[in-house]
Every structure is written in C-alpha cells, then in structure tokens.
C-alpha cells in the first residue's frame, strides 16, 4: 500500500505540473495571440482613455511574466475575470452552467459503460457469429459518425418525424424547475419527489447523451471484446472450467474483471474528452451547459471565458486520469504491487 501511496503522490505532483504548464499555454492563447485584449474587450469605438484605464486594470502595461503572475494569482483564487457577453464573472457563470454539462457527461458515461460492457461481452461470448459481426460493423460505423453528425440526425428523426423524445433544452416549458440542490435536474427532482420533472428531465437527457456516447461506446465494446477473447485462452480459465465452475461465474467473475483493464484505461480518457465533444452536441440540442457557454465564448472571442473553461476542462481531464489509475490498481493487483 505504501508504494501505491507514493505512486499516487507522484502522479499528483506531476498533474499539478501539467496544469501549471497548461495555464501558460492558455495564457499565451488568450492574452498574447490576439493582440490587445483591452481593445478587444471594449470594441473599436471606445475612447483611448477608457482603453488605457482597462489596460491598467488588466495589468497589460506590465511585462509578460508579470501579467502572467497577476493572471495566475487570480485564477488560483477562482477569479477568471468577467465575461463580456453575460456581464457576470466567469466563476458565477461556471456555477450556473456546469451542472447541466456534468449531468450530460455523466449520463452519457453511464450509457457508454453499460452498453460497451454489454456489447463487448456479447460479442466475445458469440465470437465469430453474426452477433460478433454485427457489433463489429456497428462499431466501425459508430466510430466514424462524429457526435455532431449523430446529433443532427437525431434532431431530424426525433424532432420532426418521430416526436417521442424532446430535442431541445433540459426541461419542457410547462414544467417548473426543481429547487437547486446539486444542479443536476434528475437528481434534484428525485430528492424532492417530483417525479413529473424527473421523467421530463430524463427524457431530455436521452438524445444528447446518446449522440455524445455513440462513438466511444462501440470502440470500447470492441476493446472489451478483444481483451476478453484474449483472456479466454489463458490457462487459469481452462483450470476453472476443469474444476467445474459454472460458465456464468467464470464469465463474469474471472473473465470480465481482468478484461476490463484496457477498457477502463481508455474510458477515462474518453469521458474527459467528451467534455470537448459536448461543445457541438450542446450547441445543437440547445443544452444550457458549460460547453455551450464555452463555445459561445470562443465564437465571440470572450477571452476570460475561453481561458476559464479550458483550465477547468484541463483540470478535469488530469483528475480523471488519476482516478482511472486508482481504479486500475483495484482491477489489476499487478499494478498495485509493482514498482511503478
């Protein structure tokens, strides 16, 4: 266990370094590349004195390292500056919009895990039959359909032809929002026993999260399948068959668990990457989340929003990787006891 703790400590230190480096990259993107941020914030018509005052407020009259120092000091205390578009501070906006994105990403993550393992196991069990082939073909198409194309096709199918699922927003207009506790509508409404709102919020989640998870779902199913097929021929499985352990228990207890190692390690990366894919999906489904906020910020060149959202997502990505490492040590005792 001691080794595990050292390993995690080193990972943590390393992650802090990565986020620090990322902040420099973002600083360069948001402050250095576009020219004069003060001029951009105020527009071309603002008088010179006002621009000059804002330049001083933003410390733009200092040298670049000093500017970075002032900026990173603000970021560390949660101050990303103000959004030009909403007028609120970026931190307030993050608090408002982030729960919607978390809800979407978590739900699509759940969908991915459940169906990836289900399809992967099915394909491995029925290796080289039509089931396996069907899942293989589906996986090739699943990987090739970008999230935004899937979203548009869903919009067409369900928005116009087959209106059984809502396609816009998080909640129908007739239903009042549950009181905010976690910000996740499904959980909030469940806690308060508001089942009408829960069902409605749940239905709104289905299409965006399916569009978001489609690609990685089948990819992970393929990885699970090939890993299971590989493990099937290991000697310990043959030994267990010899002992007469029921096939079902072999399948789920002894075969599935070690076979999930490659799936889990790619799943973490995918989950974090889906915050990025959510940019377009949220835009298409009018999902009032942080990714839509971020992309609107990007399109209006709202530099504080851009840097705030990217720092947040980068941090999430790095933290997810640490969590994945921890999960892997539970799945694979070899990692736990090795000298990594």
């Amino acid at each position, binding site marked *: 266990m001691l080794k595990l703790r050292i390993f995690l400590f080193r990972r943590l230190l390393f992650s802090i370094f990565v986020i620090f480096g990322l902040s420099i990259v973002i600083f360069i993107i948001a402050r250095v590349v576009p020219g004069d941020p003060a001029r951009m914030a105020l527009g071309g018509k603002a008088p010179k004195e006002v621009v000059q005052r804002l330049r001083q407020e933003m410390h733009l009259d200092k040298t670049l390292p000093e500017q970075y120092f002032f900026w990173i000091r603000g970021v560390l205390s949660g101050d990303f500056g103000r959004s030009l578009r909403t007028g609120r501070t970026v931190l307030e906006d993050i608090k408002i919009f982030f729960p919607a994105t978390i809800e979407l990403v978590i739900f699509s993550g759940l969908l991915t895990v459940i169906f990836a393992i289900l399809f992967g196991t099915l394909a491995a069990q029925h290796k080289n039959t039509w089931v396996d082939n069907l899942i293989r073909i589906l996986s090739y198409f699943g990987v*090739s359909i970008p999230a935004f194309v899937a979203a548009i096709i869903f919009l067409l199918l369900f928005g116009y032809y087959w209106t059984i699922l809502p396609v816009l927003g998080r909640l129908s207009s007739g239903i009042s929002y549950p009181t905010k506790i976690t910000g996740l509508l499904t959980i909030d409404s469940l806690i308060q026993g508001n089942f009408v709102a829960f069902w409605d919020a749940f239905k709104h989640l289905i299409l965006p999260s399916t569009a978001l998870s489609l690609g990685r779902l089948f990819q992970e199913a393929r990885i699970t399948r090939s890993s299971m097929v590989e493990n099937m021929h290991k000697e310990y499985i043959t030994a267990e068959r010899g002992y007469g352990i029921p096939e079902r228990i072999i399948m789920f207890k002894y075969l599935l668990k070690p076979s999930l190692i490659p799936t889990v390690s790619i799943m973490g990366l995918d989950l974090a990457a889906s915050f990025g894919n959510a940019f377009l999906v949220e835009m298409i489904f009018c999902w009032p989340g942080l990714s839509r906020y971020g992309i609107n910020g990007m399109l209006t060149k709202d530099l504080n929003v851009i840097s705030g959202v990217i720092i947040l997502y980068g941090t999430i990505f790095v933290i997810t990787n640490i969590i994945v490492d921890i999960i892997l040590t539970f799945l694979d005792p070899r990692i736990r006891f090795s000298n990594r």
Partner: protein
Amino acid sequence: MRNSNQLNNSIAISLVRPKSIFWLNLGKNWYKFSWNRLSIVGLVIVTGIIISAIFAPWIIPYPEHVGPFVDFENALQAPSLQYLFGTDNIGRDIFSRVIFAFRGALIMAVLVLALVVPLGVFLGLIAGNFKDTWIDNVIMRITDIFLSVPPLILALAIAAVLKPTLTNAMIAISIMWWSWYTRLVYGMASSIRKEYFVVAASLMGASKFHIIFREILPNCMSPVFTKMALDVGWIILIGASLSFVGLGEQPPIPALGQMVSDGARYMPIFWWMTIFPALAIVLAILGFNLLGDGIRDMLETGVE
C-alpha cells in the same frame, strides 16, 4: 517485438539492422493486408476519395457552383439525375460542393500531417535517444501538457482567437497534434536504442546522427504510418467540427462542416442539404479507419 525475438534466437542476426521489409515483401504484405476484406473496402473508399479530390475540378458537373454562384430558379431542388445530391438554398449543386469540400478537407489533413509528423517524430526520437537526461525531461513534459487537453477543445480555442481562415484552422490543429507522434516515437525509440544492433553500431563508432536517423528511425516507422492513415480521418473530423461552428474555410468556398451546419437550418424538408455532406464526413472517417486497421495488421502483427 520482432527484434526481441531475434535476440533470443541469435545475437549474430540481431547485430544487423533489420532492413525495411515493406518493399521486399510486397507480395506477402499485400496478402496480409487483403486477408481482411474490410481493409480492401477501406482502400477502395480512400482511393476513391483521393482520386475525386485530385481531379475534383474536372469531374464535378458544375465547377462554378463552388464559388459565389446564385441560381434561385433551381434552389432547393430534390436529388435528381441532373443534381445528384440536390441543390442548396441558392441553387448550387450539392454534389459538386461536397466533392470540392472533400478536396479541401484532404488537403488540410495532408498539410497538417506534413507539418506535424516530422516535428513530432523528430522530438520523440531525440527525447527517446536521450532518455533520462534533461533533454528527455524538457521535451516530454511539454508534450504531456499538450496531451493533457482533448485536442478539439484547444484547437477550437486557438482557431477562435485567430482569424477564421483555413490556414488558421490548420495551425490550430497542428499545434495540438504533434504531441501524439512525439509520445508514440518516444516509447519506441527509448526501447530500440538498447537493441544490440544499435549498440553494435555505436561500438563501431557510428555518430549520434547515424544512430538516431539511420538505426533507430527506420524501426519506429511502422506505427507512425498506421497512425498517419488513421489520423487523416480524425483530422478531417476535427476540421469539420471547426468549420461546423464557422471556424475554417469561409463561404462561399464549401467545407464539409459548414455545409452540414448551413443545411441544418433547412431541415427537415430539405434534408439533402445536410445529409449528403454529413455522409461524406462519415465515409471519409470510415475509409481511413478501415485502411489504418489494415495497415496495422499488415505492418505490426508478429505472425510470419
């Protein structure tokens, strides 16, 4: 992997640098590649895309429709023999525009790779060869920073602060993409440098330059080629995502993502404006994925 097998068999063999086996074993490689029918499908799709991209100006039926062309009499026509994929809201032939957008997407992917692969491979080689020195640390820690954010997020941000042009979209993608090659080659190079044929070369007095570029580099190339084939598809995807939100090639010049998002406003009745460009994106990614898998099977399986 092949090298370590040789090590076990006989050191004498492994002192000789493995020759580039691709051209020598063309027949066998083709056999391995064509063994999987899906690889052939991929090859056919990719060949079709490349040919139509190269010869786009000659094969598209309405070359003037890729520019600022307006023909309101034929606006929003359904797909027919005259207009294979129908026409858009100002009467331009979607088929011509899709083929032309393919050309743009492919050129972008090739240029990005041409920029990114040499840089990424070079950095990876240097870092791998000087593993555990400060050179390795500096290069790989910077690489880790770029690997720490999903490429789409940073590419969007970079493209957004720059002016929305095709060149800037390419720059944005390139800034994100080199790190994957560095990581890939780093892993290979740092293990290959310990192989006996490399050690033998350095004992014979070969220069660092010779060792890195003549001994290590050729043996890192198989996974790089595989990744390049797969990446063409992914770069087309990221490029389409950028142009979907309006960053990238600007109208009237067509881009795949831009056509999808323009058409979305005319859904559901005029579905062809969206569906055909969308299918084109799917087809491109599918083709390069299948081809990439085929190349991987061909170059990397140890089964002889």
